[in-house]
């Protein structure tokens, strides 16, 4: 026990001695949390909208009026020809072009129906889909008003049946993305710091040559590993605490569930990450290699965590891979406990998997650390 105490003391000293690292460990993640949580939104607004009005009648102007009144469409540009508009789209200045054909009003009244041309930049398919829905909604509501105006007695009115859908967004009524993203980004930051620090740790001693000095001491493998893990565990927990305070004070994120449960889960979770880090550290010869591997896994963990894109939409084999993604469980648990107030019983599957994961990874870390070359 005393031996472990000394190693821990040494590790802490080393961390706090490196003045260049302190702001990177403590300030950089929190600044990123504050700034980046605002960036992560799929909400679509300020759509770059342009129109080509070949009709120039009260009807066409009234329709365009609807678009400028909408909050979704911000920038309205008028192009006189399709060629101009297309070149603006190539340039990236415009994403949606509405083309009103010549004699739009006249034909609408004469033929009782008419078409509008709509061109959408679909490189981002999901956004394009939403943009198309917004445009259709505006046209529909315009159409409805227009119809009542134009409708004559001779027009037969058929009353169609109507099914209305009423949305009810639970746990986040206003669809506030920050409620969703702040806990998620906090999870990423805690994971990144603990993984990178632990991943570089032993390999650094190897590269500098100080590991040999430790190897000749009577310190046992497990003692050494525990001594190495503990300081980073403390840092991870500290970061979580600071992050939660920021979430509460700056973003006013509701914390519905039990804090104790969140801390209990996180304490196990960080062990998983540290285990992975030490395992990488043991298997590499230079810090450079260790970092590349840590980076590789981190990018996979982040992009396949279900935080930015839904896991259910991934192909089956990819979903299987996500089962080995610790961040996935952490994101799920944070969301469940923090926002929905899930109890321990609800998160048992995640908890057990994480516990098992922690056990296996740390066992591997201890096993792979060799005192002799």
């Amino acid at each position, binding site marked *: 026990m005393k031996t472990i105490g000394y190693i821990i003391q040494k590790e802490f000293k080393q961390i706090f001695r490196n003045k260049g690292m302190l702001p990177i460990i403590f300030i950089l993640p929190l600044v990123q949390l504050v700034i980046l949580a605002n960036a992560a939104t799929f909400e679509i607004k300020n759509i770059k909208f342009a129109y080509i009005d070949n009709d120039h009648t009260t009807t066409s102007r009234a329709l365009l009026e609807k678009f400028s009144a909408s909050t979704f469409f911000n920038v309205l540009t008028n192009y006189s020809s399709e060629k101009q508009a297309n070149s603006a789209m190539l340039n990236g200045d415009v994403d949606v072009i509405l083309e009103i054909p010549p004699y739009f009003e006249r034909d609408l009244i004469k033929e009782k129906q008419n078409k509008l041309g709509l061109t959408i930049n679909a490189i981002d398919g999901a956004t394009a889909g939403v943009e198309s829905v917004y445009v259709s909604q505006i046209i529909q509501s315009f159409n409805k008003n227009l119809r009542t105006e134009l409708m004559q007695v001779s027009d037969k009115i058929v009353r169609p049946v109507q099914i209305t859908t009423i949305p009810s967004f639970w746990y986040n009524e206003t669809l506030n993305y920050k409620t969703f993203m702040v806990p998620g980004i906090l999870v990423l930051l805690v994971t990144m710091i603990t993984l990178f620090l632990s991943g570089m740790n032993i390999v650094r001693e190897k590269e500098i040559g100080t590991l040999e000095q430790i190897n000749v001491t009577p310190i046992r493998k497990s003692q050494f590993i525990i001594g190495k893990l503990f300081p980073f565990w403390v840092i991870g927990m500290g970061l979580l605490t600071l992050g939660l305070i920021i979430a509460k004070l700056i973003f006013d994120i509701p914390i519905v569930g039990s804090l104790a449960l969140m801390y209990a889960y996180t304490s196990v979770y960080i062990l998983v990450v540290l285990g992975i880090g030490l395992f990488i550290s043991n298997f590499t010869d230079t810090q450079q*290699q260790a970092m590349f591997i840590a980076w590789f896994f981190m990018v996979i963990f982040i992009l396949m965590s279900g935080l930015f894109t839904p896991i259910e939409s991934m192909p089956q084999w990819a979903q299987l891979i996500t089962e080995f993604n610790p961040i996935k469980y952490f994101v799920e648990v944070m969301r469940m406990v923090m926002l929905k107030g899930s109890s321990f019983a609800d998160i048992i599957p995640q908890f057990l998997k994480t516990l098992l994961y922690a056990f296996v990874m740390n066992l591997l870390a201890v096993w792979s650390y060799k005192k002799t070359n």
Partner: protein
Amino acid sequence: MKRFRGFVIKEFYHIFRDKRSLFILFGMPIAQILLFGFAITNEINNVDIAVLDHSKDATTEEIINKIAASSYFSIDQFIERESDIETVFKQGKIKAVINIEKDFSQKLIKDGKAHVQIITDATDPNTANTIYNYVTAILQNYQRSKNNNITMPYQISPQTRMVYNPELKSVFMFVPGVMTIILMLVSAMMTSISITREKELGTMEILLVSPLKPFQVIVGKVVPYIFLSVINAIVIVVLSIFIFKMPVEGSIFLLGLESVLFIITALALGILISTIATTQQTAMMISLMGLMLPVILLSGFIFPIASMPLILQVISNLVPAKWFIIIIKGIMLKGVGLQFIWKETLILLGMTVFFIGLSVKKYKIRLE
């Protein structure tokens, strides 16, 4: 010049000798692009939902069948009570509950309208909103078929043309992004580490007392990495063309030049980091912690920049990846030439000059 060549050759030796790093360097981008190209999509598929049907009549059964038939949803369970909604949401598997009101058929026939409530777990607002829109669309289709496709008079119908990506594939969105992230991080990380490594191991001192000019030392360290990154870029582009069927509408030559420019920008950033950091650890933490999330979040890779708060839109201009993503999408998908992307190119060029200029100013030829 001969001296310089010798130095570059030495650097190549260093890199090629470390087989493991080399393997990582080339294997990882390939693994990542394959994995993400197939796995990441922001469409929804097979979302588990539950149904709470208060009516249980012929119409509601039809509606439920319609929803079950779509590839977006799979009906995981039927629940009986309102209080069960809370329970299934807390367990976390079910993302939405379709709540059908009592006497649905009767109301539809008698009053001409009836309601369906769509309760979603909005802890993930994006999925929640998409689910709502998709269910609504399914119900509208059903409604249309019920109404025997009566067309109302004075109907205005928009004819929508989805350009550049008619099938709305999310691969087209994500492959350029993944390529950018890989090139950015690998390049910045590699240079910053390789220079600080010499500092940390003490060999920088030896290089500085050699007749090579400091400038040559730095350029010599960077040249091999330009070479490696270009190979990486080629591999990624080839994969995206042949495996993900990404079109290259524009000039592939221009794409190559722009990629080289971006790689140099990233390497220049790496040099800058190495002039600030004294140990490899610091250099790596800056390039990983400092770059990873901003590059993923502020580059327009996943989240549309136009929807961000104004201040973040301004900040996003400082992220080189943002400009490169615009450039690749332009060349590959829109087929534009330099006349449309000269502004972005100039910005990347400017950033590169700035990074190098700052590094030269900060570069210390003497060790403390």
